Each structure stands twice: as structure tokens, then as C-alpha cells.
């Protein structure tokens, strides 16, 4: 049983992103199972809502009205929506710094989000969290926080809890490619794998951690190799293809609910805005600019819309209505949130401990 890496070099290819990483590929219409039409239609609507909310927030950031740091998810709407389609009551979902999409995909209220980014008492975190700390227990969102990797072990614990509950529920952990560089990620994968915890790990690989491309941070661009190492069943899919995301999620979730332990999804995607804030080009060099133009042709929304139209499930008018409706919802929610109150002064100290006030200074 002496062995070495020379013996395994062949299948290292399975861990390359191949043309999934090629901005010029994947522009043709999606492969759609007509049985999935209904779900895809509502997914399309949800993605449009996310896009419109994000654009609104981006505008408000650029105008200086929203001041908390916002990490926009424009261009990456499909993973959240695709996975949310298989989240049921009793499941617990966790996100990170770029989680507006996760919140909305699970059914979160645009008003709650727009109030939160304004720091209003009516926000989903009662104005105590801002963009980076969202929660929505009724819809299964158990928390998103901006310490990279921090919610991954927390999600594993939620999985352990689900297993103890014994209802077939699962935990879902959304994170980025950057998070796979945190030790917490690996400790979590090993723990979930060893304990067979019902956890769906979803890595949205958008190639970037802030300004740095994955090729400058890791020796290979697909992160599924970590799942393989931790013996967590994995699948990789085009993260801009809602149908593909749904298929991969469905298989993974079925295995998880059947008690097979955790599963890992790598969804390859791309963000259109800068790491933080509203601008497109805040971060980096020319290469990214070229890529971005090509990735825009891989827009998860328009590609799905075109495919559904080709399919006969959608017509132009309807699509237009989706956009108009989203705009109306968002503008109304924004207006309402703008008039809401800030948290009362006592909120600072009354929310620290259960049942008691913390000390002033």
C-alpha cells in the first residue's frame, strides 16, 4: 500500500472547472425539463426581485443614503433561488456577507431588508445588523454574518440539531470560494462528514475573494476537491443556470434527507459589482473588466428568460410584467422603510442579555 500522488494524477481533471470558468461559454439556452417550468417561472420572478432590490440598494449606496457596507449579489442570483426551492419548513439556512439574495430567495420581505440597510427598527434585524447581519427565522434564515467562514461550523451545529430532532430537516450553509481558505471550513466539513450531519454546503465560487482571483489564493480553481478529501459527496454546476442548480440541489437534498450525511455543491458564478459597494470596477485590473463583459452574457436572468420563452412557458409581456411588478414592490418597500423609525436609544443595552439591561459605560 505504498502509494503516492503520481498514482492519482489522472483524475485531478475532475477538479478543474474547465469551460465553466470560461466567461465566453454557456451563452446558449438552458436545457429545461418542461416539468420544471412552473418552478423555473417562479424562480425567474424571484431572481428578478433580487436583481431589482440590489439595484435599488446600489443606487442608494451611491447616493450616500445607505451607509452600511453592502455586498451586492447582482449576477449571482441563481444559486440562492435554486437552493431555496428545496428548502422546507424546519430547515435552517445560514449565509455570510453577501446574503441579500439568500434572504430574498427564502421569501424574505423586501421592506424588511430595505429597512435594515437603513438601520430602521422595522428591519429584519431590528436595525441592529445592517446589510451584513440578516435574520428571518420564519422563513428559515437563521443568520448571516460577515466574518468569513464563521457560519459554516454554526450550520454544522444546526445540522446536528436537525439530526437530533429526527424530522429529516437539514441545515444549509452558503459561503464563497474565499471561505474555503478558512480553517473553520475544513474543520466543519470533517465534523459534518464524521457525524453524518444533514448539511448542504453550498459554495458560490465566483472566482474572487475581494480583489484577489482564486488562482492567486489556491493551487486550483475548483473547490470540490476539498469535499472529496473530506468524503462529502459533491456536485458541481453552472451557478448561472437555474435549472442546473435545481437539479444538483435536488439530488443532494434527497441524499441528505435520506440520512446519507452532508453534501457539497460548487456553483460557479460571477459577481457584477465590486466586492463591496455599488460600483462595477472598484477592485481590480483589466482582465476582470473583460471577463465581466463576457459574464454579463451569461446573465442568469436573461438566459433563463430566453430559454423559457423558447420553451413557450413565458411570453414577452409576462416578462415585462415581472420586472414592473418587482420595481413597484421595491419602490413601495423603500418608501415605507424610509419613513420608519430608528431603534430607540435603549435598544443598545436592552438587547445584549436576555431579560436584563447591560451597563451604560
Amino acid at each position: 500500500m505504498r502509494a503516492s500522488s503520481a498514482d492519482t494524477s489522472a483524475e485531478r481533471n475532475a477538479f478543474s472547472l474547465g469551460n465553466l470558468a470560461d466567461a465566453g461559454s454557456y451563452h446558449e439556452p438552458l436545457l429545461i425539463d418542461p416539468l420544471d417550468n412552473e418552478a423555473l417561472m417562479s424562480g425567474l420572478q424571484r431572481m428578478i426581485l433580487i436583481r431589482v432590490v440590489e439595484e435599488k440598494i446600489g443606487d442608494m449606496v451611491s447616493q450616500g443614503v445607505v451607509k452600511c457596507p453592502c455586498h451586492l449579489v447582482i449576477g449571482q442570483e441563481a444559486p440562492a433561488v435554486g437552493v431555496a426551492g428545496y428548502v422546507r419548513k424546519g430547515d435552517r439556512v445560514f449565509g455570510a456577507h453577501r446574503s441579500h439574495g439568500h434572504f430574498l430567495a427564502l421569501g424574505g420581505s423586501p421592506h424588511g431588508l430595505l429597512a435594515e440597510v437603513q438601520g430602521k427598527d422595522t428591519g429584519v434585524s431590528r436595525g441592529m445588523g445592517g446589510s451584513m447581519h440578516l435574520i428571518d427565522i420564519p422563513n428559515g434564515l437563521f443568520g448571516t454574518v460577515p466574518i468569513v467562514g464563521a457560519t459554516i461550523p454554526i450550520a454544522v451545529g444546526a445540522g446536528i440539531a436537525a439530526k437530533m430532532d429526527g424530522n429529516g430537516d437539514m441545515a444549509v450553509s452558503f459561503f464563497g470560494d474565499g471561505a474555503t481558505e478558512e480553517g473553520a471550513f475544513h474543520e466543519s466539513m470533517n465534523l459534518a462528514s464524521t457525524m453524518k450531519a444533514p448539511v448542504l454546503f453550498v459554495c458560490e465560487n465566483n472566482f474572487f475573494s475581494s480583489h484577489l482571483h482564486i488562482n492567486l489564493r489556491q493551487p486550483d480553481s475548483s473547490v470540490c476537491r476539498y469535499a472529496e478529501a473530506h468524503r462529502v459527496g459533491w456536485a458541481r454546476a453552472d451557478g448561472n443556470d437555474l435549472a442546473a442548480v435545481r437539479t444538483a440541489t435536488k439530488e443532494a437534498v434527497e441524499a441528505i434527507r435520506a440520512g446519507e450525511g452532508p453534501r457539497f455543491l460548487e456553483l460557479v458564478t460571477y459577481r457584477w459589482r465590486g466586492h463591496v459597494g455599488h460600483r462595477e470596477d472598484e477592485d481590480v485590473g483589466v482582465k476582470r473588466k473583460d471577463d465581466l463583459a463576457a459574464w454579463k452574457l451569461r446573465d442568469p436572468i436573461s438566459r433563463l428568460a430566453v430559454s423559457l420563452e423558447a420553451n413557450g412557458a413565458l411570453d414577452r409581456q409576462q416578462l415585462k410584467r415581472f420586472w414592473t411588478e418587482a420595481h413597484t414592490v421595491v419602490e413601495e418597500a423603500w418608501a415605507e422603510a424610509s419613513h420608519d423609525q430608528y431603534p430607540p436609544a435603549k435598544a443598545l443595552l436592552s438587547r445584549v442579555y436576555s431579560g436584563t439591561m447591560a451597563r451604560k459605560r
Partner: protein
Amino acid sequence: MKQTPVTTGYGAAIRDGFEYLLQNHPSVFTIGQGLWSPWYVGNSMTDLDSQFGRERVIDTPVSELGCTGAALGAALCGYRPIVIHPRVDFMLLAVDQIVTQAAKWRSMFGGQVCAPITVRAIINRGGEQGAQHSQSLQSWFAHIPGLRVVMPSTPTDARDLLIASVLSDDPVLYLDDRWLYGLEEELPPIEERNLAQEGPRLTRTGQDLTLVGCSYSAHLCREAAARLSANGIECDVIDIRVLNPLDSTLMIKSAKKTGRVLAVDGDWRSCGMAAEVIASISEAVDPRVMRAAPRRVTLPDAPAPTSSPLERSYYPTVDYIVQRALALVGAQQETFE
């Protein structure tokens, strides 16, 4: 027929607390390193795994951060996990989950969630283990809003404050010190207490000097007070018990009475618990009432040594406290240069 009282040691009392919790509260489980070992955490958890099953008494990989985070996750889902770190030093790998996550989730999400996780870490020093196996660092955690910090100094407290910690809706750091495992006492029946109502306790009264300490230092203070009493010096002894949030009422009251304070702590000095005791008192007591400047007894400003002669001089002792107390009581004549 007279019954001889049954006494229980500090370690066994902790085990009683675990047993009570696991028996009476289905939401409680415990997770950490060494829980399936006969010796890892002393006698404080012996055979809990066979008694309650390895699904509720979970031994883990060597992954402090991951396991602490997992406990927090379960806590957010209605469980009351106790995560075990056999040494404070190992727990430092999990600081993010304790300090930046658990302590903040409630406030950060507008009070909509609670994280009833108890982190139990053991102070396990001495025995020539050296710098990386001897830290206590209660001062660090007592610095963090949102995290309750509990350090029992008696077997009864070891049991009852463990139970109160786990039943608290807030994250709690519970620190026990292996040097206390030798203490024995007769335990009263278990009573579930509200941790928010627990705080420092006056365990001895006197007019001459206030001794304040927590955990093993509280024990040293009690011993020192007994010795000082034999010398005609009577002390108030305050066992802090709950370090954060700190209720300083009792120590302030005592300082006003005695005019003299000696704060003893088994942690380092700078920005330490002893500094907090002195600052809390100094802020609140009219200086004219003080009969002497307050003083601290802490570790010296050095990592723990291994070599036994150095180790002996490193940790505060009853002798040393007595000596410093005597100097303090004679200190009205002390000259400040």
C-alpha cells in the same frame, strides 16, 4: 443513630451538575474533546457517555473552532449544548465563535435569537506543564459584553452554577480550576437558579480588610483570611463567582467599610480581573474613606514556567497573600515616594 455527612468533591459535583442537566433537560447535550476518555477531564464527566449515550455526550476531532461553532449552531436551534475545552489554551482557537459570534448574535439580530451555549473550559495549570497549558485568561472573557463568565470556587457552586449557566438563555463561559478538585463539601439539594440573579458573595466578614477573588483565588482568600484572623486581622472575603456582567455593589460596600482592598487573581495583572476590582471600587468610593491604597496580587508578568522551583514562585499562595495583607493593614504609615 447519627449519620456521617456525605461530602462531594468539586469534580464530582460538576459531574452531578451534568447528570442533573442531561437527566432533566432533553435539550442539553455536551460536545468536546475527551468525553469518551476515562481521564481527560478528570473525574468531572466520568461515564456520562455510557449513561446518556454517545449521541448526547459527543467526543470530537481536534477542531476547537469547528466544534464550538457547531455547539453555537445547535444552541440557535433550541438546544442547550455544553462545549468542553479541556484547557483554556485550546479554547483560544475558538475565540471567534465565542467572542465575535456567540456573545454578539443576540444584540446583532435585535434580540430575536438567543444562543444558550455554555462553554466550559478547564484551568489546568501547574505540574510543570508550562506556558501553553496553564493560561486562565478569565480577564479576557470578562471584558466581552454579551458573554456571561462564571467561576465557581466551591463544590456546590461548581454544580449549581453549571446548571444555572446551561439554563441561562445567554452564552456563558464557565471556568473550573483543577486545583479546586480536592475541595469537598456536603451538597444541598439541587435548585435551579437564574444566573442573571447570581453574583459576588460575601463569604466571611471583617472590619479590617476586603479580600476579593474568584475561583481558586477566592479559595486562597478564604484560607488567608483564616490565617489573618489568627493574627487579629478580620477580613471581608468576596468570592466574585460571576465575573461578567460584574455586579460591584458588594465589593464597593465592603471597601467603604474596611477602607482597604486586596484584589487577588490567578490571571495576569495588566487589564486583568484584579484591575477591574480596583477600578470599580476606586471609581465608586470617596478616596477620603480609603485607609490605604488598594493593592493587587496576580501572576507575575511572565508566561508560566515549567521548572518546579520557578513554578512554585509563579502562582499566588496563601502565604504571599497573608504577607501582602499584613503590609496593607500596616499601610497607613506606608510612605508613597
